[in-house]
């Protein structure tokens, strides 16, 4: 099993005391699977995604990626997981403004030592970014920037792709195209895809679907 989450708890200190965001979350995801995680705002979707991605730490519970519990890891260990196992696509794209599109796409792959120039060229070609490779992120449209973010994630061929509302800032038509591409490429690279979304339409395109309510998995659908 690529991802295994069990009895995961997370709370934050707020002005009114501790706020429990995740309360005993349990889930599994295998290589090649696609999973949609839906829920209302504040239900804990992004927190769960961040913990799985090694961006945040749980209060308790186990998050195992490729059999390794990342919840018990220190900062450097989690950085290694982010570098070598996981790829994250953010809603805000979060490209590196000082690097060109080409460098942004190759950034994660070079960092993890899995740079494959042919694959990057293919990705750029298929995502319609070939003409943009020499440009800087600020010179691109929102849709183009999101495609760069996806290309960056796929370029390193991670085992697990985490996507947090990846099309939230795009219009419906562009969102559909981007999503289609991401799913196709994820399947081609045999990685697992966990998509956090509000959109039932997008969630419906995933292999499985989990609904999170008040920090707990409410229902799982096929």
């Amino acid at each position: 099993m690529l991802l295994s989450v069990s009895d995961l708890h997370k709370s934050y200190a707020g002005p009114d005391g501790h706020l429990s965001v995740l309360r005993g979350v349990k889930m599994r995801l295998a290589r090649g699977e696609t999973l949609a995680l839906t829920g209302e705002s504040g239900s804990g979707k992004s927190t769960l995604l961040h913990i799985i991605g090694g961006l945040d730490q749980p209060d308790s519970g186990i998050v195992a990626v490729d059999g390794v519990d990342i919840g018990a890891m220190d900062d450097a260990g989690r950085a290694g997981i982010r570098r070598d196992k996981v790829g994250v696509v953010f809603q805000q794209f979060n490209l590196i403004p000082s690097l060109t599109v080409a460098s942004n796409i190759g950034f994660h792959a070079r960092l993890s030592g899995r740079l494959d120039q042919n694959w990057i060229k293919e990705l750029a070609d298929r995502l319609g970014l070939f003409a943009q490779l020499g440009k800087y992120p600020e010179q691109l449209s929102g849709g183009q920037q999101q495609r760069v973010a996806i290309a960056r994630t796929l370029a390193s061929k991670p085992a697990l792709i985490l996507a947090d509302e990846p099309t939230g800032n795009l219009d419906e038509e562009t969102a559909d195209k981007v999503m289609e591409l991401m799913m196709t490429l994820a399947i081609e690279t045999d990685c697992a895809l966990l998509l956090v979304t509000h959109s039932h339409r997008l969630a419906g395109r995933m292999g499985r679907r989990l609904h999170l309510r008040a920090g707990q998995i409410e229902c799982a659908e096929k």
Partner: protein
Amino acid sequence: MTNVGLLVLLSHWRRNPMQLFTLVVGLSLATALWSGVQAVNTEARASYDAAAETLGEGMFAQIIARTGTIPQEDFIALRRAGWLVSPVVEGRLDGIRLIGTDVLTSPGGLTHVGPSDGKLTVDMITSGILFATQETLERLGEVDVRKFPLSDLPPAVILTDVGTAQILLGLDGQISRLIVAPQQPITQPPLEVIAPNFELIPPQSGSDVGRLTDSFHLNLTAFGLLSFVVGIFIVHGTIGLALEQRRPVMRTLRALGFPLVNLIALIAFELVGISVLAGMIGVGLGYFIAAALLPDVAATISGLYGQSISGTLQFRPEWWVSGLLIAVGGTALAAAASLWNLARMPLLASARPHAWAMQARRSRLIQTVFAMFLLVAACLLGWLGSGLAAGFAMLAALLIGAALALPVILDGLLAAAVRHAKSIIEEWFWADTRQQLPGLSLALMALLIAMAANVGVSTMVSSFRLTFTGFLDQRLASEFYVYADDAQQAASLRAYLELRVDKVLPIQSANQDIRGLPSEIYGPIAHATYRDNWLFLDAVPDAWPLIEAGQAAAINEQLARRAGIAIGDEITIAGQPFKVFGIYGDYGNPIGQVIITEAKFAALFPDIFPLRFGVRMDPSRVTALSLDLRKDFGLNEVNMINQAGIKAFSLAVFDRTFTVTGALNILTLAVAGFAILMSLLTLTTMRIPQLAPVWAQGITRARLGRLEIVRAVLLALLTTALALPLGISLGWTLLAVVNVEAFGWRLPLFLFPLDYARLAAFAVAAAVIAALWPATKLARTQPADLLKVFANER
């Protein structure tokens, strides 16, 4: 409406206290260094001027008695014969110098004791009053004479009328010396006829070392200005950032109907308020800086002039005014561009938190053009300009031009580094550094100016010291100097010494104008002492043998420059032509000097006999010889000078003089370090959205923190590398342009690589210390804060 607008604007500072702190501290430090240096200068000058004006020493010719004091009857006889002389009675009372003068007969410019309302003059004529500073009067023991405090007088000096001085000093009917008015009747009988035992001493043409001190004051002023410029860079950056960050608020205010003019007026009002506050803090700080520096300056001036200057400060009202004016003026200067941009900002201009940086990038072309213009102007001024103003304009153009060029040069270097990067981290590091450049450039420009000033001034000071040491070796080559009281004693002394030492070098001189410039003609004997130690700046080959053969003369640099005399030109001495075959350095001497052979001198000036002698001998025998001379000739201490002692004293005075410069060096560097710290801290908050994606890709926060320190060190090193040639150019300008224009002599430039390496280490240390806090802050940024970037909560 105005109140609401002001409240909204001020709320920014409440939410960004660090920015307000930066602004106030930056401006305070700038004002403090400027006003501190000005205070030191003003105080030192005031003390020296008071001493010079009050005592009239050196300004006028004087008559002294070879036997000691002058009987009052002789003074009366001189006055009756038509000599316009004024008596001075002088001595020590409780260790304090007491001077009695006569207001009625003193020439203009003398006994200028302060408030010239006539009251003091009348008091001095009619009744005995002791005038001195409050401090001096408090030191004075019980005396039965009225005391009057006067702050304008030099310290440790009491001024009174001749009669009171005679009583207090026990010199009844005796006068210490007579001051000779510059304008004398044509028909007066010669002095020798009325008083054959008296000697007329011509007015001093100025103190050699005094001229060096002018140079010292000039350096201090330049340093104060540089420190202020460094501080203003901080203020400029902070004001620019604060206005950029408030753009959304301003846009909202304007959209709600707040007039643009009122908005600008409110911001101007706000800035004036802050600058007045910072100015007051700055003047206060400046006072402490001056108080800390002044003892060194006081010790120096005391060493130079043998006069006490006040080692403590008086808090002068003009400092408050000038300090506040410079703070408000500096803020206006720093804010002008930002306010201009604000005035032109369209109502719907988008809120861009990084517009500050973007703006800098957009204006890079204009900056490059302006920098090039200033650097070319500096070259042209160095080549074609003349006068002190042109020298200072060259310095300003060089410094500002280089500072403006710095971000452009760094950007080019970083772009090249991006292109040649091997790993992705390396590529990101250089690209990210390049992106930070607009935000850091003001601090780096401040560092560049501070470093260049350090290199420039330390080059100048060290070159000065080396030259000065060489000059002392040249001028004080003999191990021992003896002064005779008259020609007869001089002849006996010479005969006596010639039997006991290696060589006796008679020193004889005559005053004469050369090409209309007052000059001294020296006629030394031919000896290796001159050939070995008097080094020529420019000369024909084998100049000394030709000069010693009586065929030519050597002149000092001042005379060569002022009279436009070059090697091979002809000058006329006492009607006889001489070719100039050598030009030598003569640092500190304000007038011209010519060297011819002893034989030629004797032929041209037969009435002049040498009264002074340089003695070449075994240094270990100097003490024994001076004891013999005291026993055999009755010579006292003032007639004998031990070369080693005077050299050590001169060097000590010189080193102490530049202690102040050293302290200012460190202060200026500290201000630049503060600028870097504040820029990095400001950028830290802006950096999180830029660093969060990199962290998310798998770089630890600790590594990001370390990279921030490496970045600061690299930028400091690059800036230092550029500051070195700039600083050396600055040093060259000070030595070869400003000094020549101001004082007439050019000092040679020496390079001091070890000093520069030490300075670079200081700069790197300052950068590391400045980067440590922001880097630690960054390394400790909670993942939750970084995650906000992805959750779009920022």
